[in-house]
């Protein structure tokens, strides 16, 4: 379990220990979503890119 601070409102966001690069976390205070970036054992967050849904066959 680690913690990062929301880039929007600075509230604490808890990151589950088994999280993976690319997972989305949401700030409990302001509701903003971020994408997890893993470097070594450390997690940081970056703004989640807007992505489409997969509509292929």
């Amino acid at each position, binding site marked *: 379990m680690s913690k990062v601070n929301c880039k929007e409102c600075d509230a604490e966001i808890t990151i589950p220990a088994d999280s993976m690069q690319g997972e989305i976390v949401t700030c409990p205070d302001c509701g903003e979503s971020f994408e997890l970036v893993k470097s070594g054992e450390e997690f940081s967050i970056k703004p989640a890119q807007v992505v489409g849904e997969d*509509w*292929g066959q």
Partner: protein
Amino acid sequence: MIVIKIGGSIVEGLNPTILDDFYDLVKNDKVVIVHGGGKDVTETANRMGKEQKFIVSPDGKRSRYTDKETSLIYTMVMSGKISKNITAMLEKRGILSVGVTGIDGEMIRAERKKKLLILNEKGRKMIIEGGYTGKVSTVNPHLINTLLDKGYIPVISPVALGEDYEFLNIDGDRAAASVAGALNADVVIFITNVSGLLMDDKLVTNLSLDEARNLLPKIGPGMEKKVFACTEALALGVKKAIIASGSVQNPIKMALENKG
């Protein structure tokens, strides 16, 4: 002008009288067929030792994860197997047809999805590389019109060209909607292997754009995609969008007569 979306097989799950419908229809109208066939792609890929992976979108839609190799197998099966089988079947019934893809004549261009938002095994939302799935950006109707003008029924496989001329997996229902829009079609019919779009046990056809959008939240993900494609087609100016069962007698004729 009528655009008809069928599944991957003209024999499996479809009433054989659909061939009679095509035969009668092409006498008086221009007909364009768009096909699907994901199941066939999966079977061939698995047989080639390329196990297919499926991903789930946050709202529960399951779809193929199309990496580079899968995009090539997808293109091969769609345009070299399914399309040719449909074409030969139509010709055997006396309907001259030509199988084409979005690659041919650069007919369908799509934007590759750089990133996809999925639910991972832990049920958490996650962003992954987009692979070779695309969202249709433009349909150039020139090749289709060329074929139609000379008496050929185009059979279109849902493969698009990406920005770098890579092959992209595009959804067949939405491809049919885009093609119908580009052709200014009068009608687009989505043939399903379930018994039409049933709401309160009543078959729903000829949705207005607003009706369809209102329906969307109320139905399951399988049918949702077709209703969504209906709304897209209608928004693109197609006059009528119909979802109809393929298992009934004369499925296209029935759908056009609102009896499907």
